[in-house]
């Protein structure tokens, strides 16, 4: 029952926002919707831990939430809540400065709801086909968000986003069809009872290995493009830097991870069916490739948001490496890393949004230095978030990274851990150099005093506080959830 409610809340909010015209009301709907979504997600986590067999079913077999999807739902809820808080202040100032028309703001609020609904559908649906439809839904709803500003660059970004995403999803569809075909091979010609992931997972060993292998390749390239893995990542920096900040926070924070979730479903089937490291090696290889490619781009980056986008590319790469190594320790680390990254990255994008609104530029040369002097609060939060994202101790990312590397070394895949660690180091150096010269020193351009909307403060301070708390004290249920999710990915049913 709770799954349907969880899905319907954002859907209804979306439909409602189609009708409502007043921006203030839209903001309220937005906050309310995502507040309830997060609350329901937390309840879902509780329900999953208690539920028999660790699975909560909804609407018959159609919706299914195991530990992994509950964790993803929670991440979706938190990031959407954060960006909605920030969106309030952000869009009010955009309207005041005339950067956007009221119509565009309405468009933002409406599309965000559909974007969130699609993402929740991806994580909660049981049927692989419908999961593909949901991922397609996320793509469609977010492309117009990217093109919100309707400038030359945002249209270019949107077009590339939809074209590359479209191609990826067509290949993913082909993969899904092939998976279905692999299952058909067993069922003797008549229609398969259900294309649900749980049943597929059950009879995975009887799937046709050759077909499954081909299917996983298409699934990997398809969902890999949506997840922004290395050679297919070209749309990521453009889309994340051109989208309005709340959207790029959601894109970077959670939409990449949702695509990785979809990829994981395929990976679990392939591992169960092929009993070989085929899919694991793909994940590991492309994950490392993403981390290595992110390095040079961050080192010589000229634009703040593009640098944050490449940082997301690197973190997704690390998560894939974690899943690619496929030992309980590394998978636990990867899941934990997803959560921490989802808390830290949005704050960076919100800060970038503030800077963009104040300086009307994102190019480091034009921003100059002395941000600490002109926008002290944003500078402080940016600094703290930067420390968190580069994996320095007080914040959780350091623990999750070290867990992944420890798992790599124990499972005698030391070289993978070493390469990943060096890639992290390169990105760290690039980001440190940029942030140091941005935050410190004497301010270049003359900027008006910084004015603070309550929404902004909440959106930026709250996630960091939560991150710090979670870094120090991980509540027992959360740990149990992650262990069970790791079990699911690792191989237990």
């Amino acid at each position: 029952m709770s799954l349907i409610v969880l899905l319907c809340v954002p859907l209804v909010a979306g439909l409602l926002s189609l009708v409502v015209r007043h921006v203030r009301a839209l903001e309220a709907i937005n906050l309310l919707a995502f507040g309830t979504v997060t609350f329901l997600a937390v309840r879902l986590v509780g329900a999953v831990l208690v539920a028999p067999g660790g699975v909560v079913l909804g609407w018959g077999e159609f919706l299914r939430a195991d530990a992994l999807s509950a964790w993803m739902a929670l991440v979706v809820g938190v990031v959407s809540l954060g960006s909605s808080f920030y969106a309030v202040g952000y869009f009010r100032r955009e309207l005041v400065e005339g950067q956007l028309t009221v119509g565009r703001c309405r468009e933002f609020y409406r599309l965000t709801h559909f974007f969130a609904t699609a993402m929740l559908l991806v994580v909660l649906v049981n049927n692989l086909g419908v999961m593909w439809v949901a991922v397609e839904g996320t793509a469609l709803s977010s492309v117009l968000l990217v093109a919100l500003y309707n400038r030359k660059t945002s249209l270019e970004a949107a077009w590339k986003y939809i074209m590359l995403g479209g191609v990826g999803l067509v290949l993913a569809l082909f993969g899904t069809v092939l998976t279905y075909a692999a299952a058909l091979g067993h069922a003797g010609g008549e229609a398969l009872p259900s294309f649900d992931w749980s049943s597929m997972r059950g009879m995975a060993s009887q799937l046709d290995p050759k077909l499954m292998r081909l299917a996983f390749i298409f699934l990997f390239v398809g969902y890999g493009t949506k997840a922004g893995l290395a050679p297919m990542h070209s749309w990521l920096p453009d889309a994340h830097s051109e989208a309005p900040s709340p959207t790029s926070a959601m894109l970077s924070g959670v939409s990449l991870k949702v695509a990785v979730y979809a990829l994981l479903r395929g990976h679990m089937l392939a591992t169960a069916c092929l009993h070989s490291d085929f899919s694991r090696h793909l994940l590991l290889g492309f994950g490392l490739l993403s981390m290595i490619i992110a390095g040079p781009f961050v080192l010589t980056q000229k634009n703040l948001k593009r640098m944050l986008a490449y940082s997301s590319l690197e973190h997704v790469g690390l998560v894939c490496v974690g899943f690619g190594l496929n030992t309980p320790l590394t998978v636990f680390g990867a899941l934990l890393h997803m959560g921490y990254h989802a808390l830290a990255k949005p704050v960076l994008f919100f800060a970038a949004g503030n800077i963009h609104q104040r300086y009307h530029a994102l190019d480091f040369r034009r921003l100059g230095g002395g941000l600490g002097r002109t926008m002290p609060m944003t500078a402080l939060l940016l600094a703290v978030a930067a420390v968190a994202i580069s994996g320095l101790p007080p914040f959780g990312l350091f623990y999750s990274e070290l867990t992944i590397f420890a798992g790599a070394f124990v499972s005698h895949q030391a070289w993978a851990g070493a390469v990943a660690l060096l890639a992290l180091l390169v990105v760290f150096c690039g980001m440190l150099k940029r942030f140091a010269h941005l935050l410190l020193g004497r301010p270049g351009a003359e900027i008006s005093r910084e004015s603070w909307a309550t929404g902004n403060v909440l959106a930026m301070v709250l996630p960091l506080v939560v991150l710090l708390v979670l870094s120090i004290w991980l509540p027992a249920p959360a740990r149990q959830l992650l262990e069970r999710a790791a079990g699911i990915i690792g191989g237990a049913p």
Partner: protein
Amino acid sequence: MDYPAILLIVAACAYVAGMAGALLLRRVGRLALSVGFGLAAVGGACGFLSGVTSLATGQAAARGAVTFWSGPAPNLRLVIQADPLSCFFVTIVSMLGAAIAIYSLGYSGAYLGRKSVGLLAALYNALLLATTLTFVAGNVWVFLIAWEMMALLAYGLVTFEHEDRETRGAAVFYFIMSHIDAVCVMLGFLVLFQAAGDFSFDGLRGVGAKLSSGQRDTAFLLFVVGFGIKAGLVPLHVWLPVAHPVAPSNVSALMSGVLIKTGIYGIARVCFEFLGGPPLWWGALLLALGTVSAVLGVLYALMEHDLKRLLAYHSIENIGIIVMGLGASLMFVSTGHPVLAALALAAALYHTINHASFKGLLFLGAGSVLHATHTRNMEEMGGLVKRMPQTAMLFLLGAVAISALPPLNGFVSEWLTYQALLQGFGSTDSLLRLMFPVGGAMLALTGALAAACFVKAFGISFLAQPRSQAAERAREVPASMRLGMALLAIACLFLGLFPTVFLGWLGPVMNQLTGEALAGRLSLAGGWVLAAPGANAGSVSTAAMTLFGLSFLLVPLFLRRMLGRRAKTVRGPTWDCGLQGLTPRMEYSATGFSKPLRMIFKALFRPHREVQREYEFSPYFARSLRFESHVEEVFEERIYRPTRFWILRVSRRVRALQQGSLQVYLLYIFLTLLGLLLWAV
């Protein structure tokens, strides 16, 4: 009850309170200053007492690990283990922390109007806490967390005066190098973790035996690189003379005195405890690295005329000496001579605390000079001894100590190192034993060059006439700064005159690392004389030297009473061959002083000098003359700059991957798909 443990907890609480207090009161500059640094001093004092009592009473050896908190990751637990080695290093960090905190009460007054002093005090407290945590870490998690926090906080402090670009650049370079060494150390521990399966130090103890020799050597090399960068061993030292001078002086004192010692702590902990029986070449490598660092460190220091850069290079030299001791000790452990190993280790550890005290004193001295004259350039100083007598005397005491001259502590630790190197000659029969005496000779060269360098540093900065307006107007620094320096001076005197006392306290540490406590074998005649172990080996007593030295002064006094009763003293101009009179510009400058050595070591320095002459009709009647000479920093020019250049060049080349055309991006996906299809089918 275990008093040292309580004191340690009190110290930690003091630091946290200091940090919080300084941050809360940061609006009220002076209050934040006194609260922050006051509590830091209290914390330091408690830490010092805890370290000393636990070493002296031997409680440290008995104490086990204590688990406080378990974090999100599976085996992440906060484990604190104050064994003798940790207590020794906690003593150092606390002693220096307290002295510098008192000094900072006066020093950071200069920042009151300009900068947020509360932030400085808070970061200072946090850095002390992180460093103490690094030393008492019980498992790899806590060690790495504290290690990275230390690097982050030190970065915050180094970039405190971030107005000028050079400071920011230096701070970024420092943080990158710190992070590189953190990565190396992490990789090293991960290699160990492979065999140990558990992150706690107890689990890791002696795990080297379980590793294959290839893995053990990789782990060792990773640790040497990682801790080498932090300590500032020569090929990896380039960040030190860049970062320390730009930091506020009290911070650079703390960094030079303690932060680079975390590298030494790491090497000691890993090589002696975790990696099991070391092969001979490990010790030889450390000894060689130490020797090279010592000689090159002091040679480059000689060429500096920026006071703080000079002291930073000297940190490299002294670290070299410490690592020589460690290297020798490792060689003795591998050839099975525990007594000699303990002696070499005692020399190294004793030099660690000595260096912390006199280097801290010298940096605080340099800070006082900077506070009074607002310049670090020795060419613009001079005549400060008459304007800042106490600071000058304290700086002189530090200079004598660092040049390893008899009555003070530098001499004692180098004497111990010499004894270890000398007796090492007979310890093995492989050709490597020649390294000991040659190392001794290089140590002698280093000591003499250090003496030359500090004659220059003290002579040119403090003596003769002031060479600039700033030096002319210099006034003595406030009392708290002098008190801070005086504390360190007292430490130098105590460590110098009564070495046997502290060496006795080092017993448990040596017992922990080399299994031989040398209890009492180092002191003769009731602790007045320091003796090397072994039958009628050499012995020295700085206290007796001082006493006899003073008594010998009676001879000239007696002769003056006898012969020169009516002799009076007249003050007259310095003898100037009858010219109009000596002007300050005619005095010997720092560059001039080091000129002979620059000529002798020309091959290393490759000096470039440039004279620009402005004249109307004939070059011999120049209107103005500009002379500029600089020394080439080999490692920076030959290794670091090209690496940086090539990395950025390749990155720019890779950027071309994302040059905007949608077709190319689609082609990437297409090729990936084709590649996978061909590979998989």
